[in-house]
């Protein structure tokens, strides 16, 4: 009886923990959405912010800045991380080099984002100013690429590792070269995992504040090129809260940000599920 009681208690506790996690998520989402949704309107989404924190303006330029910075980060990180993962998984054997690479990626992922930001500031903003334009979308995007890289590298590698060895052998056994096997069999099979890695990386980039605080500049005007300074949504939330204590606009922006992240997550999930099913012939 005691064992059964303990079993019941354990299940209860675990169930409670699960529910608590879910509740916390719901509370945060609900709080932000309830406070932010009323503010969202076509006007809010398509008007640039007032330069001195005026009420009744929009967040258009910050959305553009977020898309630009994140897109740039992905553009840089995707080929590097996927290429790196392919190299590590397909071309190196399990040896010291591979361990060093993987450890390096792990360390990179563990570095606090403000320190990455500091590096981005010193390297891209100051040292490479003639090329990046100092505080700019380019500096911010490149800095964010450092944060995306380890996540998507690691997840891409796992995705490649999950491709059954028999498929590689099957392809090689038909006289395909290694590169042909990778591009025509391994990559398509690993694609859902690789895309997931990139999406997680993008999620990280969209939500990142500390790393861009020091690199992107914070200018509220609409950007015209990658060398213009900009203010992505996260930074905008931080700025209007710290400088103008404008919680209303902060909530509105936060709601847009959250909806965007949720939309990206669910859409890719759906697309990847469909792709995986097609891959499995269902």
């Amino acid at each position, binding site marked *: 009886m005691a064992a059964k009681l303990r079993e019941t208690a354990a299940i209860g506790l675990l169930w409670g923990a699960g529910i608590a996690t879910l509740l916390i998520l719901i509370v945060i989402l609900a709080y932000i959405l309830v406070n932010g949704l009323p503010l969202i309107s076509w006007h809010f989404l398509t008007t640039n912010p007032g330069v001195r924190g005026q009420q009744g303006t929009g967040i258009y330029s910050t959305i553009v800045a977020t898309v630009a910075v994140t897109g740039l980060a992905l553009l840089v990180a995707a080929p590097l991380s996927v290429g790196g993962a392919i190299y590590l998984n397909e071309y190196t*054997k*399990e040896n010291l080099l591979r361990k060093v690479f993987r450890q390096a990626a792990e360390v990179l992922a563990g570095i606090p984002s403000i320190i990455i930001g500091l590096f981005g500031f010193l390297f891209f903003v100051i040292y490479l100013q003639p090329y990046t334009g100092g505080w700019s979308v380019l500096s911010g995007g490149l800095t964010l690429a450092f944060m995306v890289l380890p996540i998507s590298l690691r997840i891409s590698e796992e995705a490649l590792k999950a491709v*059954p060895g*028999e*498929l*590689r*052998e*099957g*392809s*090689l*056994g*038909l*006289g*395909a*070269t290694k590169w*042909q096997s990778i591009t*025509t*069999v391994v990559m*398509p*099979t690993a694609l859902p995992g690789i895309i997931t890695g990139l999406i997680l990386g993008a999620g990280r980039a969209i939500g990142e504040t500390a790393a861009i605080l020091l690199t992107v500049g914070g200018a509220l005007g609409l950007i015209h090129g990658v060398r213009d300074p900009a203010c992505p949504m996260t930074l905008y939330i931080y700025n209007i809260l710290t400088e103008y204590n404008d919680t209303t606009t902060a909530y509105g922006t936060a709601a847009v940000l959250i909806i965007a992240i949720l939309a990206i997550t669910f859409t890719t999930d759906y697309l990847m599920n469909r792709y995986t099913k*097609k*891959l*499995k*012939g*269902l």
Partner: protein
Amino acid sequence: MSGEIEISIKNLNLWFGNFQALKNINIEIQKNAVTALIGPSGCGKSTFIKTLDRMNDLVDNVKFTGEVIYKGRNILDSDTDVVELRKEIGMVFQKPNPFPKSIFDNVAYGPRVHGIRDKKTLHEIAERSLKGAAIWDEVKDRLNESALRLSGGQQQRLCIARLLAVEPDVLLMDEPASALDPIATSKIEDLLHELKKDYTIVIVTHNMQQAARVSSHTAFFWLGEIVEYASTIDLFERPRNKRTEDYVTGKFG
């Protein structure tokens, strides 16, 4: 033993690191015949056939000495073009491993990687190969369906068709029916009888009855050595070696 020799193996030794997996293998594989390799798990028979198309190269720390003479050259030479070699010596694996693509794309895979792009040619090759692997009638109306929707036995025959599409001379089969039910297994075995007219086949099997049914010659591997190599009927009816006798009568292994 009579008949033309397709592959001649001389003093083959193979190591994984410090472990010697093959010890002084000397056998001749008959052309247009089925040669079966039997023996307990880990005896080296799979390692042996993977040597014949250099698949062991994929394994870390592999070393080999000796000669595998095929078409007048030693395929173990370091300057052998393994990609070319694998077009001539193809492998069917234990678990059916169709690519997650359509049935047609699976069969067309080999010709495509070897540069054939013409749709009509690819279709001709696909039909011929699928017929050769005795699966055409079952799939001709669903060539664009995913290969993964086929049953295990169909998948395995598709994998054989995929191999036939690159027109090899030798088919290596690593327990091709071990994951299949008896009916699918007998289809594969019937297929082997057809295929041996045009191909040289080497099959690894755990199933002694299968070896007895499909092959003309059988080699018994034990601890990395070939203990006995003889015509299949001799090996199963009157083995000369005590160890073979004990293995085929089920006294060990």
